[in-house]
């Protein structure tokens, strides 16, 4: 197992946020952590990323206990994580300070192309759309060749069309780069479109309610009966009637 959560609990003061989370994520797996707002899913991801220390329990990666952030595992924030004072190139090369100039340039060019930002290398983030900024951040994360990516509602601030495009781009990148991905979202459709498995958390304090395996091959047909059945199953699990 790549990532292992063992009895992870978290409280802030007297507020219990996470209660006894146990979960295993395999190497190369795409796992979505799904739950209502305030259920602690983002906290869980921050614990995994080493930015927060759990009140109890532990997270191990490759059998090693997580004690802090690590360059082998990169956290992708919403697009506001890009550095506004650096160009696209500068952002993507941000973590490559220990490479030679030539290697660095090669890496940057590769990831600029991978996320489809050719021609924007010298642009500053303020000149880019939200979707493009998000690509910059994903490229910056991938450029240091991490083995795990953490994405915290990365597409939450994008419009719905861009969001769909970004999802298929992310899947393409995931298949090309073979990373383990932990993806936090409150969007049920998003989780069923992306994940190998969806971990459904309860409202606060977050507990693992259910783990739903999405056994549909990519590319997924969003109107196939299996897709709709899985989606409705999760809607039911969260207690929504899926009617408006």
């Amino acid at each position, binding site marked *: 197992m790549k990532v292992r959560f063992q009895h992870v609990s978290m409280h802030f003061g007297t507020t219990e946020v996470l209660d006894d989370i146990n979960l295993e994520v395999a190497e190369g797996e795409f796992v979505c952590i799904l739950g209502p707002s305030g259920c602690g899913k983002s906290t869980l991801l921050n614990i995994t*990323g080493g*930015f927060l220390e759990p009140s109890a329990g532990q997270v191990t990666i490759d059998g090693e206990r997580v004690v*802090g*952030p*690590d*360059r082998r*595992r*990169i*956290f992708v*924030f919403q697009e*506001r*994580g890009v*550095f506004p*004072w*650096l160009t696209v190139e500068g952002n993507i090369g*941000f*973590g490559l*300070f220990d490479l030679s100039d030539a290697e660095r340039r090669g890496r940057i060019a590769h990831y600029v192309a991978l996320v489809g930002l050719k021609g924007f290398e010298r642009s500053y983030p303020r000149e880019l759309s939200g979707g493009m900024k998000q690509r910059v951040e994903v490229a910056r994360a991938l450029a*240091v060749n991490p083995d795990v990516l953490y994405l915290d509602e990365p597409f939450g601030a994008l419009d719905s069309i861009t969001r769909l495009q970004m999802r298929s781009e992310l899947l393409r990148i995931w298949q090309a780069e073979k990373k383990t991905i932990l993806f936090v979202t409150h969007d049920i459709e998003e989780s069923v479109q992306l994940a190998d498995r969806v971990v459904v958390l309860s409202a606060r304090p977050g507990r693992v309610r259910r783990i739903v395996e999405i056994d549909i091959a990519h590319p997924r047909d969003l109107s196939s009966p299996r897709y709709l059945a899985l989606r409705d199953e999760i809607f039911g699990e969260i207690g929504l009637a899926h009617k408006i």
Partner: protein
Amino acid sequence: MSKLLPFTGIAAALAAWQIAAAAHPASLIPGPLMVARAIGELAVRGLLLKYVVASLFRVTWGYLGALLFAIPAGMALGLSRRGELALNPLLQLLRPISPLAWIPIAILWFGVGDLSAVFLIFIASFLPLTLATMKAVHDIDPVHLSAARNFDLPPYRLLREVLMPAILPQLLVGMRITVGIAWLVVVAAEMIAVNSGLGFLIIDARNAGNRYDLVVAGMALIGIIGVALDLLVRRAEQRITT
């Protein structure tokens, strides 16, 4: 037309001033023509350049010295919660003390001379610069600091590639405001602690023969140079932030 608009207030004030001075020649306030003549006299006597340079010299060194200490101090306080808790009350206590209240101590420590004036500019600039830096560090988006931690940046790179560029826009605003303060303070310092400069000109012109044309000439020069300093820093600010 709109290019001239900013000058209408100044022109109107000058005209009104000249008329009033001409109507009451007995009053002690000389008109703008007399003041212009006084500036000419200063130039001829070689004092204009000498005094302006003396004032700017003191401001420059006091201000740069303050910058040199205030930026690291502000950064350290901004980054260290404990440091801030320990020292912020002290800074807040020192803040309401006018830099001019330090004049006797400046003279005690440094005597009458340039060093005293430079010290007073330093005192006047250090606190606002430190507080501006501290505030700018507080306002860094935590996401940027988290990202820098995630990529495990060595400290000097963290400083150069994240902290400095992140605080720069706010710091520049603080620097501009502080130049204004330093310029205000140098005039007062020169009235007491030195024998040259625009502040000295004003106090000396009054003491030695009630030359109010020279007094107002000094005031006008202070205003003009103050505006020029502000424009200069603004220009630098724009160049750096765009």
